[in-house]
């Protein structure tokens, strides 16, 4: 009875919302997914309270701080998360979904440039997308954990404000922490 393809279609009315990015692209997203972006949820709830009756597909929510490419990835990630309105799975289905999600996550990270991670984190932060933030923050931490100090400075655009002798002191005293670091 359960739909074995991607996502089982929610049985009840699945309202859709339209999100507009900084580069004026429109994304039609299922409410369940869009609600994971708390900023959107807040906007939506504020709209409901106001006198403007229009809801669902006729409301366009502007996201001036988010580029289309970034939003596409975040929506794609949001779709893969366990949906709060979906029918509860049995243990086996849950395990299968977990494995699928892991596979998807690995594939996603493989195709991302490290710099894109920063954009995704920034956007997830703006959208208040907790699961996305958790995932991409961890992905970025995993990416930099064995990198050199120079790499990290370049990556985050940080200027080294240490005097050479000050930096040398750190490197000497904590020499063990500089061993085995990835080549730049």
């Amino acid at each position, binding site marked *: 009875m359960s739909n074995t393809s991607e996502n089982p279609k929610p049985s009840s009315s699945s309202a859709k919302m339209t999100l507009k990015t900084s580069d004026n692209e429109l994304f039609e997203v299922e409410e369940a997914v869009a609600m994971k972006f708390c900023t959107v949820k807040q906007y939506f709830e504020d709209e409901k309270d106001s006198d403007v009756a229009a809801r669902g597909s006729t409301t366009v929510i502007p996201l001036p701080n988010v580029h289309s490419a970034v939003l596409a990835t975040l929506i794609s990630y949001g779709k893969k998360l366990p949906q709060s309105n979906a029918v509860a799975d049995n243990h086996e289905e849950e395990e299968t979904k977990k494995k699928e999600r892991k596979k998807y996550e690995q594939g996603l990270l493989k195709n991302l440039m490290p710099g894109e991670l920063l954009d995704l984190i920034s956007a997830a*932060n703006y959208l208040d997308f907790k699961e996305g933030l958790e995932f991409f923050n961890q992905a970025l931490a995993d990416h930099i954990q064995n990198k050199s100090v120079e790499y990290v400075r370049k990556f985050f655009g940080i200027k080294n404000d240490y005097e050479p002798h000050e930096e040398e002191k750190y490197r000497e005293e904590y020499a063990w922490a500089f061993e085995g670091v990835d080549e730049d």
Partner: protein
Amino acid sequence: MSHYVPLELINSILPRLPVKALIRFLCVSKEWSALISSSNFTKNQLSHSIETNSNRTLILKETCINLPLQSRFFSVPYSDNDQFGKAVQIYQPLHNWDILDYCHGLVCLLFYKYKEKEDIVIWNPLIRKYRKLPREPIDEPEFSCDSFSRFGFGYDPINDDYKVVRIAEFYEGPVLMDFFEVKVYGLKSQCWKKIEKQLPIKEIWSMQSVSLNGAFHWIVEQDDRLESILAFDLANEKFQLFRKPLNEGMPILDVLGGCLCFMGVVEETYSDFWLMKEYGDESSWTRIYKIEPGAVPWNIDYFKPLLFSKNGKKVLMEEVSLFWYDIEKKRGKMVKNQSFPKRFKTATCIGSLLLLDGDYVIDLKQKKNKRKR
């Protein structure tokens, strides 16, 4: 690719890093150094470490019967799926010690011989920093007598402080006196304080205390020859007594899975393990397993329980080396790892930046290399 990243975002990425990376990144910029060294960051990082069990490491102290002064320390990474990595030798601060107890990435080391002054050090092996405790005299009574001390190390969550307790008991010849001296050292204050209250007991049986929930615990004998568990709360400095769950076997206390663990041990016969599932509630004592002959291929004795496996079905235990005890199958299996020393004691650590402001542990190998230059 590089554009300015607000510190707020950096702050949600950094606590996820292993401590080795955090130490290295102190040198990225003055702002990063200030951030990483801040006490708020230490707290955040520790919370994250505890939640995710990150940087999980076993610290092994070799126990050589023949050459006690040359026992080495090792660190062994221990992954999320219960796998042990390669043991790597590490250097302990100063000289030879025993492991007293451990918590939040800190290991408390003790050097103590009866009738001699003790040396105590708190060490964070993953960042190679330590602090040596100042020597604290025992306020001996006027008449001449000998004293014997017992120690404990643990975390006080109310004051967010790490503490060492020393209880001194006094002997006039072979006779045990009926008063004790209790002193507590706090890592924050960096000094010892005397506890004026008297212990409501006759004698302490445990060699060292077990720390949990901001309290130290010992097996004690009360005046009416009743053996029970004494708890001393670090924050409000109050004593409390708990009933033991069993009367048979030699009573030993430990901590397992965040609960007080009581063992009744009868050498070569059995080792019975109980957990106080709800701290403070005597009715919550629950037997979790009993090791009996045939379950393990060696003499049944006191085996220290260290931690549960990820699925909670096995317990990692310390005998001379380490073994996994399968609770359902009632079978113990030795952990085979070529890089482990033959006999050792174990402490468990997670990554933390506590004692970042402590003294450096000098790596003897590094020192030798420096001299060569």
